[in-house]
């Protein structure tokens, strides 16, 4: 635990022992999903359960795609997640920069309010916002699912603000002496420096929208509007017995997130640790 030399072999052995036990708990649902996604229909209920199917039924994947309007759901999900990500990338760094690096009177109270909003349960505002969107005629469209992102998200503002606070002040002073306008300081000096933090919030937002269930459940009513997560539900209730196709679909909607995560992992972790959340 502390790198001391005396930490004996016994300690390490027992650490491995516990990690393997808990690791099995963490890994087996995942492997079971993969295994089930490759089974034949009649293999699902074999007793004792089989980990490796006799024949790999890769056809479960195209079958699942054809069983539900997979690409339509995928398109809907990507549209929402893409627009929402664009939204937070536009609004949050602007606000965070203003809170962290612009010496104006409103910065401190605005930050205090931001922290309070972070604690407020979503359900308090859920109903009035729904009614307002309803009056605008936007219920049944995807607008309510991405539009608010363009007006800032408190947690991301907090995260980026912490990041901006960590940058040396000399940077902007030097630029100001050189006569750079404020907007240029933000756009050409500060924003490029906080790329890891921007990547972090983009990833958070994208994953959040991709996996969101409650938002689409409330706002989307027609199947042609459904996201993958809502689509999964329809699949479950109608074809409860088609476990193998359901698992194949789950693999297809889970794997992209895991892959994206590992591609940007380094920047992601830098973004979090830098922001002082730790």
């Amino acid at each position: 635990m502390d790198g001391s030399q005396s930490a004996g072999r016994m300690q390490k052995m027992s650490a491995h022992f516990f990690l393997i036990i808990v690791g099995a708990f963490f890994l087996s649902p995942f492997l079971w999903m993969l295994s089930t996604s490759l089974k034949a229909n009649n293999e699902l209920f074999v007793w004792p359960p089989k980990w490796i199917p006799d024949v790999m039924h890769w056809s479960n994947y195209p079958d699942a795609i054809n069983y539900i309007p997979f690409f339509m759901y995928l398109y809907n999900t990507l549209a929402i997640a893409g627009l929402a990500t664009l939204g937070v990338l536009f609004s949050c760094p602007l606000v965070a920069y203003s809170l962290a690096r612009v010496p104006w009177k409103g910065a401190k109270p605005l930050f205090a309010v931001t922290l309070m909003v972070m604690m407020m349960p979503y359900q308090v505002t859920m109903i009035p916002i729904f009614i307002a969107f309803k009056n605008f005629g936007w219920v049944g469209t995807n607008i309510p699912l991405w539009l608010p992102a363009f007006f800032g998200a408190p947690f991301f503002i907090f995260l980026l603000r912490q990041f901006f606070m960590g940058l040396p002040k000399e940077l902007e002073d030097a630029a100001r002496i050189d006569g750079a306008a404020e907007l240029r300081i933000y756009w050409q000096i500060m924003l490029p420096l906080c790329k890891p933090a921007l990547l972090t919030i983009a990833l958070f937002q994208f994953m959040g929208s991709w996996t969101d269930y409650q938002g689409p459940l409330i706002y989307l009513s027609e199947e042609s509007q459904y996201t993958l997560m809502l689509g999964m539900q329809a699949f479950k209730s109608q074809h409860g017995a088609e476990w193998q196709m359901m698992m194949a679909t789950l693999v297809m909607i889970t794997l992209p997130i895991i892959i994206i995560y590992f591609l940007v992992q380094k920047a992601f972790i830098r973004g979090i640790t830098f922001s002082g959340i730790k």
Partner: protein
Amino acid sequence: MAAIETSLNEDTSTAIQLRRGKTRFERKISLFGMIFALPWILGLILFNVYPLFMSAYYSFTSYSILEKGSWVGLQNYQTLFKDEVFWISIYNTLYFTFIYVPLSIVFGVSLALLLNMKIRGQGFYRTLFFIPSLVPPVATTIIWMWLLNPQYGLVNYWLGELGISGPAWIGSEAWSKPSLILMSLWGTGQAVVIYLAGLQDIPQDYYDASHVDGANTWQRVRHITLPLLTPVIFFNLIMGTIGALQNFVLPFTLTNGQGTPANSMMFYVMYLYTNGFSYLKMGYASAMAWILFLLVVVLTAVIFLSQKRWVHYQGKE
């Protein structure tokens, strides 16, 4: 949370600079700051302050989506207190919160301690524990429904191998909530990452000094690691509690929104959603939202007040 406090203090220095007279430059800066913050100022008004007031107003009306509704005073609140399902949902939610949150902290910290040891395969283990937290909640539900299936599920098969006849899990009143807690623990990997970052922040000097004093591993964990990790535990305790009180997707998708069996899976936000969007009792649901808000505020305040007794900030001792 420690980060929040320090950053609030850092703010004062910029504020002081501002006070030294108003030059043209400073007025320009002030306008600039406001313009940059404009999206969020609008966002606060449109998506937070206005809805907050409207929610309070709706909670005193019989608002449904179909009609405007009329002022009913405290009637929604009075009806709520006589509503049996409301109390069941409170009980279920607090049951889940008070068992899941402490368990997730003990589990998360223990895992982080193990993962922080210099052992082979560390990177592999870390990845292993993190992956489930990337799995979408809807997917988590479906995978675990299949695993916990009383007839064909892997879990009861394993228990059978050990000579234990497994329960009906999600289908039984007694086991539905423990099943949910188990599934939720599966996704705690993100907290482990935060604990690990906290562990790596503890200065090596402390351990070296304790080594000279002849402290053993357990004493070091107990008297150095855990106290210095308390700010991180505090952060996760607050976030975990707020999150647990709003538990929705897992029980909702598991039971198709029914909270079955016998309302044992009817959680507070599920009942709120059902009232608002299935029964269209938006006024009633708004009253529920305010009671939830109160509950969150009270529990968060209690945790904040308890802070002095057990949270140690480095350099404050």
